[in-house]
């Protein structure tokens, strides 16, 4: 795990990496701890009043159902980050597995897997997701995570494969083969640890993408279902009160922008650390 720690340390020394990491940490801590400290995001103290502007009681104001927007944004962070992390973890696992097998075994296996990936890359991800998610009347969160994860590994597998093609020619891989090491062992012990760096970069950047994707799906009503708060869903609901209560849409929107931006800042810094050539 040394290369990973080195990369993280290098990214931390990068100014924009540090800013990104810092904000991400705040968002993550808020997402974990926040919901316990804030009022219930579903409570509607006085539904007849409707939305109130930001003020002392509700720093971000309330939405048209008089729910506290701050606690909804914070709980939404938990949902959005949770979905994003799980989906990205799934994508990275699939991408790494396919890339390692394809790159190391080569030949027919490689050709078949990579043509499938080519095909999958030719179809827009959003299109596949809309098509499948439309099956449900209320999309289950688990289905959302699995589908986003299952459609996000294609490019990753290509990156891993390219890395494996290079590593396969390394002297220590050849030495391990000459020693009679089993394939499984070469893949897991000699190749996998060396692709963790690029994988980490891809994952960090993918988190930003997936947060946007989930927000987009929720905005279309095909993601997280109300009353569970999600940033995209909140923006969807705020549409009706866009003029009278703009804060209902601005705060979740800001949350999306800030989180995605800091994930990308950190991801870019990490990439510079792992691969100085792309700087």
């Amino acid at each position, binding site marked *: 795990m*040394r*290369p990973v720690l080195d990369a993280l340390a290098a990214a931390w020394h990068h100014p924009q990496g540090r800013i990104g990491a810092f904000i991400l940490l705040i968002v993550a801590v808020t997402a974990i701890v926040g919901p316990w400290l804030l009022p219930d995001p579903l409570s509607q103290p006085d539904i007849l009043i409707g939305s109130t502007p930001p003020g002392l009681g509700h720093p971000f104001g309330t939405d048209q159902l008089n729910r506290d927007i701050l606690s909804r944004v914070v709980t939404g962070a938990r949902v959005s980050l949770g979905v994003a992390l799980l989906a990205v973890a799934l994508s990275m696992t699939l991408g790494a597995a396919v890339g390692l097998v394809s790159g190391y075994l*080569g030949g027919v296996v490689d050709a078949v897997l990579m043509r499938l990936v080519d095909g999958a890359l030719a179809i827009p991800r959003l299109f596949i997701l809309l098509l499948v998610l439309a099956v449900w009347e209320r999309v289950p969160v688990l289905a959302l995570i699995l589908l986003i994860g299952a459609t996000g590994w294609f490019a990753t597998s290509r990156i891993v494969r390219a890395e494996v093609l290079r590593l396969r*020619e*390394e*002297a*220590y891989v*050849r*030495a*391990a*083969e*000459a*020693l*009679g*090491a*089993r394939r499984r*062992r070469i893949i897991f*012990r*000699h190749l996998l*640890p*060396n692709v963790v760096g690029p994988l980490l970069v891809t994952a960090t950047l993918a988190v930003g993408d997936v947060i946007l994707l989930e927000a987009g799906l929720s905005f279309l009503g095909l993601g997280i279902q109300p009353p569970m708060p999600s940033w995209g869903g909140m923006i969807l609901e705020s549409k009706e009160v866009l003029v009278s209560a703009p804060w209902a849409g601005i705060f979740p929107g800001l949350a999306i922008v800030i989180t995605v931006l800091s994930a990308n800042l950190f991801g870019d810094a990490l990439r510079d650390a792992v691969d100085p050539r792309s700087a």
Partner: protein
Amino acid sequence: MSRVLEVRDLRVSFPGPDHRRFYPVDGVTFSLERGKTMALVGESGSGKSLTSLALLQLVPSPGRIETGSVIRMGETDVLALRGEALRRIRGRRVGVIFQDPMTSLNPVFTVGDQIIEGILAHFKMPRATARERALHLLQEVGIPDPSGRLKAYPHQLSGGMRQRVMIAIALSAEPEILVADEPTTALDVTVQAQILEVLDRLQESRGMAVLLITHDLGIVAGRADRVAVMYAGQIVEEAPTARLFANPSHPYTQGLFASVPRIKGPLRRLNPIGGSIPAPTAWPSGCRFRPRCPKAFDKSELEPPLLMVEPDHQMRCWLAEEPQRSSHAVNEAIG
């Protein structure tokens, strides 16, 4: 005298320009007796390393071993092996020491892990027992403080120590054949001697056959039982070491000797071979050494077979048919 390795008509090809395949190893034949050392000598690009990789079917893709090639280890037809059967002979029948100990060890695992990996790839035993064995191997290759070194990472060791570790790894499954591919090229001269001494000692104690691949005639003398000189993918001269050193007959071999400075004897200008080895995509027709050969004559335009120079001494040069011209040439070369 039993043969542990027999290589016959080994050809390795790679796809080249214009859909034509080219042959960096082109018809190599030799054999290795139990407990003996055979040296494969040649310049970079002569195909000697590729020959050693082919022994374990480790030719990098897109290269392939041509049909018609034969590699036998005892009763085993190596080229017929695939998958698990092939894996079982790698490391077990043949251990390989690669040239560069800096890159042949995986930087992220300890030395102990990598030796244990080699043991467990071939023997079923508890990890603790494998560890004991690893410790013993490190002792055998002369590493001080072996139990401490077991936990060291490759970057914490010197070049010489790393090469000792490589030897320990190559020996971990107790192979009967050891392929040493330029084992000392990447090392300091003083360390070279130590590593060679370790190799000699282990060969003696284990009765291994050694295929020593080198470009250094100095380490061949007094170590190898037989020498095969490779040029442009072929063996151009082969003989017992003493005979070859006493009577180097192929103009290329003579050129190699003339390129090495001598400590004894009259002071003489070094006489390196002009030019460099042609690329395998553009091997000359006829004798492949012809463009660089000071003694090329009309017949060199035909490809020479291996011809007898004296008993148990062959070369791929038409001069073998013309003792007059040949001995004249030798005198000229040796001075």
